[in-house]
């Protein structure tokens, strides 16, 4: 997922003509006065931390200011925040608009129906998960011909607006649809969408670009998202790598097998700390690379669970042994392996000759790694 911060989402909105409050991003209090002037932002204004986590309003990450000095002070305070573990690097300053009503609208994917899904609710400004189902209108959209007029009318009706406001919503929906398709979004959400006079304005912007479509959108290449530094490195190396709360690293091949391994581990009292899916790789270099990455996460112990179907057990074993040779002392971890399938005997022999524990029963192996991690904790 390429989750865009509000200001970047709004840059896209601007490109597609979605109505926005006047605003500008700043990265230090010194930029505030200039930003207010150059973007023509009247006072009072709103100052918002540009973080990916929700709940900014209640969390003190959104402030209001009536003077330039107040705006500078609010910016300074927000830039000093660490909001839900995320450092605030940018602040968005925007005009404070007279809001008549707050609405909700989003476009996302309905996986079961394999269709884009539009959701609209007259109850905006709160998390949509907390809104009663009866207050949400859902419209499934056929990719061909796209979001058509009568479907937009149904969404407009969900808001209970008429006249020029209805026209403004109808126009907005067409623009959101284009964003969803042309920017390869998996989510385009405006919450709240504010009724201001005779039109609607996007007060917030939540846009997630699909990871797999990132190759079509090099302009988002620098988006850091909410990945950890190691996850970021893994992403560049195209390794499926997720950091979790526990202390045991799990390496397996295939997403399903890796998840299943985590489940077994958890069941026997282990605490998974890293999910690392080797995928279908057969390349010892790739295996080595994955292990070195795992070492950097400093797990208390690592469990390797390989089923050699397409993959060959011996090449995985070779890569593993090479990796263990390269791992710095400080990052060493106890390792339990279970490799089965293709060239299993050769693989097991390679591991054993390098002094690596190799068991064939999953339950036994898991118990061994839990013990190893506990012994070190």
């Amino acid at each position, binding site marked *: 997922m390429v989750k865009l911060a509000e200001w970047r989402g709004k840059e896209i909105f601007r490109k597609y003509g979605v109505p926005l409050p006047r605003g500008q991003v700043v990265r230090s209090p010194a930029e505030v006065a200039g930003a207010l002037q150059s973007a023509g932002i009247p006072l009072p204004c709103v100052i918002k931390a540009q973080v990916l986590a929700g709940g900014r309003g209640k969390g003190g990450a959104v402030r209001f200011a009536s003077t330039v000095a107040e705006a500078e002070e609010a910016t300074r305070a927000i830039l000093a925040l660490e909001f839900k573990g995320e450092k605030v690097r940018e602040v968005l300053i925007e005009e404070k608009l007279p809001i008549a009503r707050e609405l909700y609208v989003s476009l996302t994917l309905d996986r079961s129906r394999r269709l884009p899904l539009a959701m609209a609710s007259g109850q905006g400004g709160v998390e949509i998960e907390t809104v009663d189902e009866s207050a949400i209108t859902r419209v499934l959209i056929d990719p061909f011909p796209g979001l058509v007029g009568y479907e937009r009318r149904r969404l407009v009706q969900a808001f209970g607006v008429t006249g020029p406001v209805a026209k403004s919503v109808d126009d907005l929906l067409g623009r959101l649809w284009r964003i969803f398709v042309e920017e390869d979004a998996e989510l385009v959400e405006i919450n709240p969408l504010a009724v201001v006079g005779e039109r609607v304005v996007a007060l917030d912007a939540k846009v997630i670009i699909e990871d797999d479509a990132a190759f079509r959108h090099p302009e988002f290449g620098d988006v850091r998202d909410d990945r950890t530094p190691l996850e970021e490195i893994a992403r560049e190396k195209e390794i499926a790598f*997720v950091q979790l709360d526990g202390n045991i690293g799990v390496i397996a091949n295939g997403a399903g097998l890796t*998840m*299943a391994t985590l489940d077994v581990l958890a069941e026997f009292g282990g605490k998974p700390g890293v999910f690392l899916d080797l995928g279908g790789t057969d390349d010892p270099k790739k295996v080595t690379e994955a292990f070195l990455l795992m070492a950097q996460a400093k797990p208390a112990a690592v469990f390797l669970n390989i089923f050699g179907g397409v993959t060959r057990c011996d090449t995985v074993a070779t890569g593993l042994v090479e990796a263990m040779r390269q791992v710095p002392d400080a990052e060493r971890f106890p390792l339990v392996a279970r490799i089965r*399938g293709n060239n299993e005997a050769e693989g097991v022999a390679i591991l054993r000759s390098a002094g690596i524990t190799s068991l064939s029963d999953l339950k036994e192996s898991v118990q061994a790694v839990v013990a190893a991690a506990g012994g070190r904790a």
Partner: protein
Amino acid sequence: MSVLIDRDTRVLVQGITGHQGTVHARNMKAFGAQVVAGATPGKGGQEVEGVPVFDSVEAAVRKTDANASCIFVPAPFAKDAYLEAVDAGIRLSVIVTEHIPFHDMLTMYHYGRSKGARIIGPNCPGIAAPGKSKVGIIPNVVFRPGRVGVVSRSGTLTYEIVNGIKEKGLGQSTCLGLGGDPVVGTSFVDALPLFEQDPETDLVVLVGEIGGTAEEDAAEYIGRHFTKPVVAYVAGRSAPPGKRMGHAGAIIARGKGTADSKLSALRAVGAHVAKFPYEIPDLVAQFLPKSSAP
């Protein structure tokens, strides 16, 4: 009759000249599949693993009567490869390629459907019917002909499960790997009726994972229409919300797609739920109708 493929299936490999395409063309042949053609633009006239390569799918179909395709084309070009197959009259395509943008997949799925074509995948291991044919990449060695159907969203996990069934002395009718993406061409509810109608299948193993509601949809279908015993497993019980667990589709989003929701739906309709994957072969042995040939 197995599910979707049989001895008469004539397989075209799209992207046969790439490493994966070549390896798996060989493996499919070794499994007994009729691999009749390959297609790679600009490589027409070559031979790969004894299979003639064509510049276009249209030419391959015209010359070899291929009626199914297996797609190994890289993600940015996979949509095009699939549309070419549909326009050339192919009505079954297994898409192995990973990382196809779901917006592309929406186009592929709906366009294909309007022409009566079916996709297995993408990001999937494909279909294998032991003793008959294979379109995809499931390892040959895990199979043995038998009467257990397997339908799964996973790859390697499925291989291990299928292998476990074999080690138990049982065999498979058809194994169908649906793929790990959020949008797949064939989901559990699309696949189950095929197993229901297949006289060679006596029991179905359903391997799900977190993300989406495919297992819940399957449970609803099973409760209403499915008459054969089902052994089910769902991976990802311990996965945290909001994280993609290896598969693009394996994510608990906004409270939806948890393993618990799926497991309880499946249990409620009488599926025999395995807590760990290694329990599956035992459950299969226990619930496989006794009349089944070994």
